[in-house]
């Protein structure tokens, strides 16, 4: 059997592509390596996705998207893609677990993963104080001190969230101003539990059974200091999930997939959508837009080529 489209990645972009493709009566399969939902599931509360006037739980939003997409016939399988053979019109997608799918087109919606700090102690204390998910781990730091590393939306939003539990939240940012949305900045500045540490980077994480100290360095003065914290939450951006592509499609200098406005990649019949794509704004709202466009582009591509 040949699918019309195989979608790789089950976050908002992939699920929306699946929704549009299956409503267009395309034979559609979505392959998810881990657990459907994508990064949304690590956000406690989504406040800027239209239609939910009071906001919505990240997990609930992901579940709703999945249910909606499968209602129209999207198939979802769990597996990690090992290889894509683009030869000829029919492409083959093989899984690490074994098994191969044939398809007329592919949508890459693999998203991105939190970028590690790459400092000493980061791996050793993962799950023992080092975290990339405030929603999951914040409650284990009641009355304690936490450092959040980063200055974008995620860092500031999760820093504010962590004040629900922690006594003090340090936000450590390498610049002298935040990149986060203005409304988030205002909330952070007016929160008495948040202390901003400007122009500084994390250098080393130390502890015993858990994190005890974060060593930081001021980039302007070169002064080093040690913060007494029990948690280090890392929000310094994301890396696109493109390793399995092995250079199949053109990437930009940061490894994001280059597409045109209709989500075509450099290879005919292969499209990309969501956070894995080179674009200015990586949000749920833009991911679903990408997914819808990619599915419609697939429909046109199949009409013209098969």
């Amino acid at each position, binding site marked *: 059997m040949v699918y019309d489209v195989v979608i790789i990645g089950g976050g908002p972009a992939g699920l929306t592509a699946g929704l549009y493709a299956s409503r267009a009566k395309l034979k559609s399969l979505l392959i998810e390596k881990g657990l459907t939902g994508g990064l949304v599931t690590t956000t406690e509360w989504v406040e800027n996705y239209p239609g939910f006037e009071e906001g919505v739980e990240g997990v609930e939003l992901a579940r709703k998207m999945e249910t909606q997409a499968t209602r129209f016939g999207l198939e979802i399988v769990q597996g990690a893609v090992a290889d894509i053979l683009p030869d000829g019109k029919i492409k083959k997608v093989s899984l690490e677990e074994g098994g191969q799918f044939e398809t007329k087109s592919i949508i890459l919606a693999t998203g991105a993963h939190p970028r590690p700090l790459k400092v000493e102690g980061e791996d050793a204390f993962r*799950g023992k104080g080092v975290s990339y998910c405030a*929603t999951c781990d914040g*409650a*284990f730091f009641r009355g304690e001190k936490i450092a959040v590393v980063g200055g974008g939306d995620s860092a500031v939003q999760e820093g504010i969230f962590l004040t629900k539990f922690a006594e003090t939240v340090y936000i450590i940012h390498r610049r002298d101003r935040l990149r986060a949305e203005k409304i988030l900045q205002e909330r952070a500045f007016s929160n008495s539990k948040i202390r901003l540490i400007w122009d500084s980077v994390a250098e080393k994480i130390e502890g015993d059974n858990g994190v005890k100290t974060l060593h930081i360095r001021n980039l302007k003065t070169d002064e080093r200091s040690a913060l007494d914290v029990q948690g280090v939450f890392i929000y310094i951006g994301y890396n696109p999930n493109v390793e399995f592509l092995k250079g199949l499609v053109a990437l930009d200098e940061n490894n994001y997939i280059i597409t045109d406005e209709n989500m075509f990649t450099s290879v005919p019949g292969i499209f990309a959508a969501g956070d894995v794509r080179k674009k200015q704004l990586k949000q749920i709202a833009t991911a679903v837009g990408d997914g819808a466009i990619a599915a419609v582009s697939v429909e046109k591509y199949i009409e013209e080529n098969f």
Partner: protein
Amino acid sequence: MSDAVKSLSADSFDQTIKSPGLVMVDFWATWCGPCKIIAPVIEELAKEYAGKVTFAKVNTDENPDLASRHNIRGIPTLIFFKDGKVLDQVVGAVPKTQLKSKIDSLV
């Protein structure tokens, strides 16, 4: 709620982790997104490994002492026990295939 994954409290915990064979305990809470995602995976594993591996879960909000006793700083954390002793642990929601190979390596 399935019976395949037993919900533990401070009273039942020590006895359960001494059950014969491998015991996997999922530390979770209602507000944790990844916990909700991995829960059905654990239910499936409990059925697949029925009679071979004991599966249980601890709500960390209701049992903060059990969580701090095991130095839990993030959930979901899955701890594997044999004869009441910690063998290994997995932090975060990981795919089913990865959990299966972990279990197979420990059984």
